[in-house]
């Protein structure tokens, strides 16, 4: 091996020692053993006693790594022909300088958790950068030809990027746990994150080992990643069982650094060697957009907002538990994203037959069904774990009911019976109950009006959509009511019926004493307005009136929820 790559690996190894030393400072609680910075007790070499051994040792290794990185960067700048590699080296140097300053701030500001967490995360990014730099400088990298790209290559590249992002998020959560404490919600998020990393990184490495076994530069990091996943999960379990033993917790941090580094190397290698010279994969063009599309972001957002509403109304009068709230929001996001993704996975063929949905990631072939399945399962599991551990089992049970009713009852019924709309409104109405359950741990009488309001509200909302797109639905073979009712008489009658039923149901909370007069009046007024739009649609059966009904439905819900909140604030 030539001298430069060897030196790059040496710097990366020193960077690994630095991660371990930093981990030890946190594990032993020595972060403030030296109160001054950049000097230590006013000198360069204080006696290495007690906690000073860890804190000053960390500083000395850090200074060494800083100098090594500077030397490496200069060497690369003057000897390397590839511009992107020179830039990577400069980035590594910038990161180490920034990291040193951040380390100084942790001392001078006496370990505010945000700064400590940022220092931990940046340290991981810096180490991974060093490893990637050493990899791309190696002679083997420069000898290896670009592989013949296949159809599945872009998909695998994106999956690897997602896996590396998840590994980083997981490290950030771990850092938050180490610097703020083992709050149940954080622990839950970290466990959910472990499931997500296992699914995404495991799938990436598995695919690489299946398809690109002949390429050592892809095979090696993939195989290492597989082992690291196993080791890291075991270390995590042992760290938990030992109640944060210094040795195990630090080993967990170190293995996490190796995991992120091998994920990063694998991802960069995939993007580099599987690049299609004609249609290169552009990293800068929002590589995760496809995954965002899979999550049905607007429906997921609606679920999050209604869950938040249920949480705040259910927990009225009590102080908001921020960690529980975070677990609820992230958990609901996971359930929403998982449900959306798995629904598209199940309906990928039907979606391909509809104009409205033909462009979705699966029917358009922008992502493979396997990857979507892995992503959907990862999101759902993460959501369930988060809710179970961060909130309570009731909330998680309701979330599981949401997934099951949406994926295994509504989705198959869509092509069989017009009753599907009624069934489909159930999972849509469950999120406020999830929020309520998270706040209270039980579903009182006062929780149910929220469910029924959302249930009834969805029916005119979806019938208006189905009416607008009825020809499309017919092409896909979905037995929605407007498809079987081309005249629209029955659809109109049902819309009016649901709008009408919504009025007394929306007034129920006022009648039960949950809210006062303000809510009563505004709920009545907006219910009547919604009904008028429904009547207009039923009478004219025209496209513009259906669109107006759709807009009215979108307006109705925020107005109602805002009024509930305002009413609470006033009384």
């Amino acid at each position: 091996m030539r001298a430069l790559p060897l030196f790059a690996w040496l710097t990366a190894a020193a960077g690994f020692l630095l991660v371990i030393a930093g981990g030890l400072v946190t594990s032993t609680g020595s972060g403030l053993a030296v109160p001054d910075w950049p000097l230590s007790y006013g000198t360069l070499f204080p006696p290495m006693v007690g906690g000073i051994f860890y804190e000053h040792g960390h500083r000395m290794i850090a200074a060494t790594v800083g100098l090594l990185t500077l030397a490496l960067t200069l060497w690369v700048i003057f000897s390397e022909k590839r511009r992107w590699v020179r830039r990577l080296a400069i980035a590594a140097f910038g990161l180490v300088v920034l990291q040193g300053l951040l380390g100084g701030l942790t001392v001078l500001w006496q370990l505010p958790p945000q700064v400590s967490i940022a220092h931990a995360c940046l340290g991981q990014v810096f180490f991974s950068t060093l490893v990637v730099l050493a990899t791309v400088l190696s002679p083997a990298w420069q000898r290896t030809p670009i592989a013949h790209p296949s159809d599945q290559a872009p998909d695998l590249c994106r999956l690897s990027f997602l896996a590396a992002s998840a590994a980083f998020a997981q490290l950030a959560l771990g850092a938050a746990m180490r610097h703020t404490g083992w709050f149940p919600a954080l622990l839950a998020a970290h466990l959910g994150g472990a499931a997500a990393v296992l699914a995404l990184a495991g799938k990436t490495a598995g695919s690489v080992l299946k398809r690109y076994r002949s390429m050592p530069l892809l095979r090696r990091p993939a195989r290492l990643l597989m082992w690291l996943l196993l080791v890291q999960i075991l270390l995590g379990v042992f760290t938990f069982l030992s109640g944060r033993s210094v040795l195990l917790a630090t080993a967990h941090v170190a293995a996490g650094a190796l995991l992120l580094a091998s994920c990063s190397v694998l991802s960069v290698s995939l993007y580099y060697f599987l690049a299609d010279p004609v249609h290169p994969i552009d990293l800068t063009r929002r590589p995760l957009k496809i995954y965002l599309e899979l999550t049905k972001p607007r429906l997921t957002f609606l679920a999050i907002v209604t869950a938040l509403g249920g949480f705040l109304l259910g927990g009225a009068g009590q102080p908001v538990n921020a960690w529980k709230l975070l677990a609820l929001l992230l958990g609901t996001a996971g359930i929403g994203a998982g449900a959306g993704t798995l629904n598209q996975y199940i309906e990928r063929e039907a979606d391909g037959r509809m104009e409205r949905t033909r462009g979705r990631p699966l029917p358009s072939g922008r992502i493979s069904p396997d990857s979507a399945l892995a992503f959907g399962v990862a999101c759902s599991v993460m959501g369930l774990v988060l809710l179970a551990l961060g909130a309570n089992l009731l909330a998680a049970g309701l979330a599981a009911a949401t997934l099951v009713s949406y994926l295994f009852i509504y989705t198959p019924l869509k092509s069989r019976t017009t009753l599907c709309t009624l069934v489909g409104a159930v999972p849509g109405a469950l999120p406020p109950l999830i929020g309520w359950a998270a706040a209270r741990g039980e579903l009182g009488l006062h929780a149910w009006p929220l469910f029924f309001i959302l249930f009834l509200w969805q029916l005119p909302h979806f019938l208006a959509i189905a009416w607008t797109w009825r020809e499309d639905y017919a092409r896909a073979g979905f037995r929605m009511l407007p498809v079987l009712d081309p005249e629209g008489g029955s659809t109109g009658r049902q819309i009016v019926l649901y709008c009408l039923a919504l009025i007394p149901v929306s007034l129920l909370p006022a009648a039960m004493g949950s809210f006062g007069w303000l809510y009563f009046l505004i709920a009545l007024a907006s219910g009547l307005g919604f009904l008028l739009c429904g009547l207009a649609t039923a009478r004219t059966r025209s496209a513009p009136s259906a669109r107006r009904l759709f807009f009215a439905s979108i307006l109705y819900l925020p107005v109602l929820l805002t009024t509930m909140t305002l009413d609470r604030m006033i009384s």
Partner: protein
Amino acid sequence: MKRGLKAGGLAVMVLTLLAAGNKPQEAAAVRPAEAAPAGGATLSGSISVTGNVPAPTKIKMAADPACAQAHPDAVMSRELVASNGKLQNVLVYVKDGVTGSFPAPTEAVVINQTGCMYEPHVFGIQAGQKLEILNSDATLHNVNCQPKLNKKFNLAQPTKGMKSAKTFDQPEVPVPFKCNVHPWMTAYAGVFGHPFFAVSGADGAFSISNLPAGTYTLEAWHEKLGAKTQTVTIAEGESKKITFSFEAK
């Protein structure tokens, strides 16, 4: 267009919901500054502990030879010290019921780092009173104090004989002290707006004197066993015996 409407409406709703959920806490009432009435009542008594009190553990000081050399005999941990069912290092103080203002004494309270231990381990101090922090060891200490209400600090005391002075502005219990060089070193202070506090001795006894007549909430705080309160009414010049009982798990 329709996406914008929907997202906008929902965002407004989220903001209102969040605003409703986070009503600010009411500010603590400010005590009126009246002249402090002179008092002659005394509250004294002892702190007992029942249950299974673990034996103090031996502190390992090998990480710093200077500390180990200072102790020919074994040093025991001070976080839970009891003898004959009497509990030491309990901070007893009047939590509620004191009216008037009490100027801070001019003499300083001293906390000494000696033999790599804090001396005293638990102490009371008035808000505004000077705290003198002394390093009597031939080694380095950092004095890491992270209260919740008062200003945090982390001092370097690298040499023997070094002194630093600090004051606390706000009443607060507890104010923890820690040395990160020698992780076994911990101490706790209680900061008060009045002089009616005491720390139980090796026999578990405490005494608070010069109290004006009145009805008071008395609290006993221990670093491991938590806090206990009781209400006491005392007449001018009266002496009352008080007992607190903690249970070790």
